[in-house]
């Protein structure tokens, strides 16, 4: 049994406090400052039940290389106060090497925090803030963090000043505040020797142009991908954690010519998207679990009537209303199997914040090309994570919706049986292309039919167009060693911790092969078999209680060996060490 040590090329900081303490603001500023300093990073947040003004924590991870997920534990915890921290303490694991810095006034360290066995210290954030105009404890604490992790003081000061200028705080005052905190950090490092351990190593000097980096959330990345894909109509009914995707798109539609509609309910939203798409405009609807449930009947209509449609679903804790603000990978079943009847469709899932751009753009391409419903399954974790990422590559998927050439009225077969299964689709306004789109089973003309042969041939066609299509290499991200005997399959935002675990394994000389699936339906058994050739042990990793992904793999693939399942429900993310534990057991 091998024990891997975790990578030390990143540092994780949690900042917590009750409503008004500014934990989230501090986290955001920290991420921005890191960006300014040329680093990469990721920030997620966790909140209590209060609508506004309740306790919250910013969870930040920073590195000199791209970061897609959180690590095993937080190196630094800044507690502006301890109020209600027990509501999400499980989401902020600390280790014995971690340092928890509480404000002088915060009072006793809560039991569950103490239980982590980290180094607990206090600092006079609040007291110092009193003496500096415009400063608040959260800002002071940023200086301390900067000192501990080796983030240039200037980057921190500039970032804070850019924000506080609105509140008429001067650059001088900002730098005073940050410096005050910085001094504490330096002292702490000197006293406890923590600083060296936490400082990110200097980068190897690289010549040439610095790579372009973006600051973006997953939902923004998806919105941008949708625009790139050509979405020009979007309808929604608001629901957490999906709403902010179209809140981002709304003002930007003005620039590209798009129509956004807030519908009276989810059913109306998806129906509007189907109507607009039938009219020839690429369309999308956004939602989350409970809303997705309501949209299924209409999605089935899009499948049967062969109307392109993108359904962007941001997963949250389920079942039912569940845990709206937390992440889980448990809308996989409903997306794969939630339509009544035999209704083949496409299911995609982005693999990281940045992959939302590519995957969403691809989803539009597939919906338009295949004239079907395409689900995209994001999750709260990546959707609302803010990340500094490498600028996404430009991709062009080329051709789109197949249209008939000079169709003849009364003869045009909207649902013609073709070699590819894809039939030219007339857009209203096209003379001679008149047909009636129908959710009743129909013949090639579109006329309702309950005859066995029509039903069978249309079922064949709708299946074939998806099965026969060439999805190319995008179906999965595959990495690792070709001769590895350990295979791992995962999907969605869980890919990040799995990738990290594999990097550690590699560093320890353990070979593995990872398949992180972007295309979940239709299943690609031939491709997976190829990707897993030679694998003797197989691990399936997912964030669910029942093992939805595991069941899906068993149903649609011939796995080379019986897989082991690593899974647990949200809100806790899968940690790299959980994967490592299994790999070390296996090696």
């Amino acid at each position, binding site marked *: 049994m091998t024990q891997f040590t975790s990578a030390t090329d990143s540092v994780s900081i949690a900042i917590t406090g009750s409503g008004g303490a500014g934990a989230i603001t501090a986290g955001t500023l920290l991420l921005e400052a890191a960006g300014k300093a040329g680093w990469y990073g990721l920030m997620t947040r966790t909140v209590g039940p209060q609508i506004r003004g309740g306790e919250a924590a910013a969870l930040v991870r920073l590195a000199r290389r791209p970061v897609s997920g959180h690590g095993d534990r937080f190196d630094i915890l800044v507690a502006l106060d301890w109020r209600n921290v027990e509501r999400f303490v499980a989401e902020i694991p600390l280790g014995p090497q971690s340092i928890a810095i509480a404000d002088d006034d915060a009072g006793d360290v809560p039991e569950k925090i103490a239980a982590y066995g980290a180094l607990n210290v206090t600092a006079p954030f609040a007291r110092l803030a009193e003496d500096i105009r415009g400063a608040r404890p959260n800002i002071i604490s940023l200086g301390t963090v900067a000192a501990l992790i080796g983030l240039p003081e200037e980057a921190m000061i500039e970032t804070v000043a850019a924000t506080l200028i609105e509140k008429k705080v001067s650059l001088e005052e900002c730098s005073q505040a940050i410096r005050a905190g910085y001094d504490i950090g330096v002292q702490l490092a000197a006293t406890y020797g923590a600083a060296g351990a936490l400082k990110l190593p200097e980068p190897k000097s690289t010549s040439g142009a610095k790579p372009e980096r973006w600051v973006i959330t997953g939902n923004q990345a998806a919105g941008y991908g949708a625009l790139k894909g050509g979405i020009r109509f979007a309808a929604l009914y608001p629901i957490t954690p999906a709403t902010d995707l179209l809140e981002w798109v709304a003002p930007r539609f003005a620039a590209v010519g798009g*129509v956004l509609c807030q519908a009276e309910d989810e059913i109306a939203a998806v129906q509007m998207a189907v109507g607009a798409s039938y009219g020839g405009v690429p369309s999308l609807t956004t939602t989350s679990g409970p809303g997705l449930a309501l949209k299924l009947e209409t999605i089935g209509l899009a499948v049967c009537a062969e109307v392109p449609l993108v359904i962007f679903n941001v997963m949250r804790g389920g079942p039912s209303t569940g845990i709206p603000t937390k992440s889980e990978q448990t809308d996989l079943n409903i997306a794969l199997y939630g339509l009544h009847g035999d209704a083949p469709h496409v299911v995609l899932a982005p693999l990281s914040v940045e992959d939302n751009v590519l995957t969403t753009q691809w989803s539009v391409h597939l919906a338009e090309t295949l004239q079907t419903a395409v689900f995209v399954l994001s999750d709260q974790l990546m959707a609302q994570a803010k990340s500094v990422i490498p600028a996404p590559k430009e991709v062009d998927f080329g051709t789109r919706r197949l249209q008939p050439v000079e169709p003849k009225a009364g003869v045009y077969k909207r649902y013609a049986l073709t070699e590819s299964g894809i039939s030219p689709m007339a857009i209203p306004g096209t003379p001679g292309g008149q047909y009636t789109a129908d959710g009743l089973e129909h013949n090639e003309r579109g006329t309702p039919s309950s005859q066995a042969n029509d039903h069978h041939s249309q079922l064949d066609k709708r299946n074939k167009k998806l099965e026969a299509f060439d999805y190319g290499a995008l179906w999965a991200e595959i990495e690792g060693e070709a001769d590895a005997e350990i295979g791992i399959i995962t999907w969605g935002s869980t890919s990040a911790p799995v990738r990290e675990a594999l990097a550690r394994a590699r560093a320890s000389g353990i070979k593995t092969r990872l398949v992180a699936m972007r295309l979940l339906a239709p299943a690609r058994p031939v491709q997976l078999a190829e990707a897993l050739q030679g694998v003797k042990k197989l691990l399936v990793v997912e964030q669910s209680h029942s093992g939805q992904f595991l069941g899906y793999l068993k149903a649609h693939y011939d796995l080379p060996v019986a897989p082991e399942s690593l899974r647990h429900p949200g809100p806790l993310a899968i940690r790299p060490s959980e994967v490592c534990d299994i790999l070390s057991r296996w090696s």
Partner: protein
Amino acid sequence: MDGCTSKLEAKHYKSDVTPIWCPGCGHFGIQAAVNRAFAELQLDPAKVVVVSGIGCSSRIPAYTTCYGFHGLHGRALPLAIGLKLARPDLTVLVAGGDGDGFSIGGNHFLHACRRNVDLTYVVMDNEVYGMTKGQPSPTTAPDWDSDLQPGGTGISAFRPLGVALQSGANFIARGFSGDLNGLTKLIVQGIKHPGFSFIHALSPCVTFRPEEREWKTLTHASGEAITSDFQEASRRIAADDGLTTGPLYAADRRAYAPPVAPLRDTKTNLSHIQAEFRL
């Protein structure tokens, strides 16, 4: 039709698909009126979309030579709204039954009235679920006996015109399938009127409500001129016996139009958006 010079007649809007309707069904009359209205307006069938839900009535799109969408039970309106917002250049007519529109589709009806997108909505009301073989609908009288609700529903009937008015419909009228000329006129008016036009069209179900054949003698023209006064319309509706036909109300609210029309141009330059993200 050959060429765009010839005049279009009602028959040019009639497709070769045989209706599944029972002989004598009121829906035939509505279909005829719709076709006549299209002809009167000389609409290009390729630029008209007839959208419906599910029900006997909702089968109407395939019986026209226009584009059509026979969607889901109760969901015709939001689909039509999406379509019209995306394609303001098309004429969109929505048609369907009382069950489709007022029962499962009631919420969309409310909000379509409010939204005031430029559509015409014809509800083919037979006060019953025809297609599923005779259950009461929202407009069914409370004492109508049926297998599912022996002795009647005991619930007072839905008032389509009153709800439409309160919800903001821009044009409101009632027609009768047996009065082809009258109904044709109303549909023409509805299509011409900007915003959301609602036409309540009585249409007997001869199979499950044979007594509705009597509507032929019971319906009566309102005689009053159309009003644009909310209060006056409200008063008339309150006094209405449910069988009064004719145009009732026309308001002058501007039809809803989205801030920007969709470009349908996927090559739009997104560089200004990229700039937002760049560090």
